[in-house]
């Protein structure tokens, strides 16, 4: 009877640990919780410690990879009917240039977008010019243009469906999508 109760308690504890769930990807990784030691007898746990260390390193690498991927995907925005890279977006593009230099197999598609004002057809050309502006900026930072593909959606894919300046400002943008070499991104030195 007592043995059964203890087993039940242990099993419940184990289930609770197993069901704790993965941390959300945006959250900082929690410290690895040491497994409860149910057996009082001393055991050699070096294999377990190695495994945990490997997991921690992998997790940190993927955290870093995610941060790098986020930097690579960060959008830039534009003034109304303008395709010039704004000064405030230069740091964003500089980060991308460093990442692309550190990850020579990565290819990126740059898509230009416009807000809903202005002519529907002209906005396709404007989006194209916006994507081209980011590409030229990165080329000037030494990135091979063959790795950067330029496309345009004009006003056909708004990010924000609103009809005010806040929505328009969000919709005037370049998006950056990794099309090849995006696994195991290395952070620039």
């Amino acid at each position: 009877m007592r043995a059964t109760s203890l087993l039940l308690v242990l099993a419940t504890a184990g289930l609770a640990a197993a069901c704790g769930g993965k941390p959300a990807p945006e959250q900082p990784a929690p410290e690895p919780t040491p497994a409860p030691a149910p057996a009082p007898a001393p055991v050699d746990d070096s294999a377990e410690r190695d495994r945990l260390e490997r997991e921690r390193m992998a997790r940190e690498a993927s955290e870093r990879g995610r941060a790098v991927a986020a930097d690579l995907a960060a959008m830039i925005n534009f003034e109304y009917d303008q395709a010039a890279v704004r000064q405030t977006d230069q740091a964003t593009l500089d980060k991308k240039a460093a990442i692309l230099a550190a990850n020579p197999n990565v290819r990126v598609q740059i898509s230009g977008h416009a807000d809903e004002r202005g002519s529907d057809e002209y906005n396709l050309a404007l989006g194209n010019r916006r994507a081209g502006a980011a590409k030229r900026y990165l080329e000037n930072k030494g990135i091979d243009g063959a790795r950067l593909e330029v496309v345009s959606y004009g006003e056909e894919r708004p990010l924000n469906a609103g009809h005010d300046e806040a929505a328009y400002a969000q919709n005037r943008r370049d998006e950056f999508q990794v099309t090849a070499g995006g696994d195991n991104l290395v952070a620039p030195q």
Partner: protein
Amino acid sequence: MTRSLARLTCIALLAPFAAGIRPAAAQDTNQVNEGVRVGVEYQPGVQPGLIVLPGTGLDSLRAIVGRDLDYTDRFRVIILRDVASASEGRGGSEGGSVNYGIYRTFGAEFGVELTETAGAVTVRLHDLNAGQVRNQQSFTLPPATDPGYRLEVHRMADEVARWATGTPGIAASRLMLVSGGRVYRVDSDGEALTPLTPAGQTALSPAWSPEGGRFAFTQLGQGRGPVVVQSLGGGAGVPVPGTTTALNITPTFSPDGRLVAYAHSDENGTDIYLANVADRCCAQRLTVGRFADNLSPTFSPDGRRIAFVSTRAGPPQVYVMATDGTDQELLAPFDYGATGSSNAPEWSPDGANVVFHREVAGSPQLFVVDVSGRRVRQLTSAGRNEDPTWGPDGRHITFVSDRSGIRQLWVIDVETGRVRQLKTPGAARLPAWSRRLSRTAVAP
């Protein structure tokens, strides 16, 4: 006694219609301007009254013809709603002569009579002042269930307009439009909306071939796409030479239907090319924009010039060049730093004008520039008005306006300023108006 009572009732019923139908003469407003009507000889700017005479049967036919003639904006169309007036006007005898006097009292100068005879419809145009038949013709119509029926009725109405004014109407034409990523066609009166491209794709910028049997459009895929030429009769589309890479937009046919001009967008910018779709070859570059964009080409009707949009001076404006790319110059004058962006030009069928839209205080408005004098005239002012396309008569323009709350199609008559809605079920944009459609060229 009974008769004069019926007549009085009829006139009382008619009066509000007659007054309300008078189109506005001022631009893009609802202002009523009573013009002076001088008689039955058609003069531009003068709208003779026209009555579609009542009769037995053919009600839907009368309704379509009456509406078509109204939409020409060349008549003041009077609709008789009182059946009593039928017997009144006919003097009581079936098939007898028309009582011209009574229709003249309604202010009409023309009477259109439709009668059914042995599987055909006979149309008579009465000159009410002269008291005689001016023209008549028998039309064989397909059954009303036939897909070609409505277009045949529109042709009949266009012929009546030609008898009365010397210029055929524009009812036997169609428009293409974009709604929810699909290209549709629709009759000139807003009926018979039919999809031409499949759901689940993004099609943009439809353009008619001059004979009306084909259309070109942009098939927008993942940020790029070809210009495709497709038959209106169905079948697979064929990419225009030079458009299978990058993004290709704003196609237009040459007047002989053999060439398609379009804009090719890639990392070097957007430039206009001309390809031979008849021989399927030879995309030729017409503009070298470097970091300026060139797009939205439109041919002059003689096929010798192309108007287009360029950002060479900063904001987009309307320019013109020879079809080999030489002789490029500004078409629509603008004040640098003051005039708003100008886009979407289309050359009128008579060659005299180019319509386009230009930003005024943040909203696009329709403008026309006359090609010889380079004078620019504003046509609209209410709401946002953009992407104009000429009707076959060179005086009507369909455009996109948000004046109803959503972007839909509207038609303006440049001569009278009258604006009407081309009703479509949902939002609509990027309209393209065909020329008059012949029987041979067009599938029903």
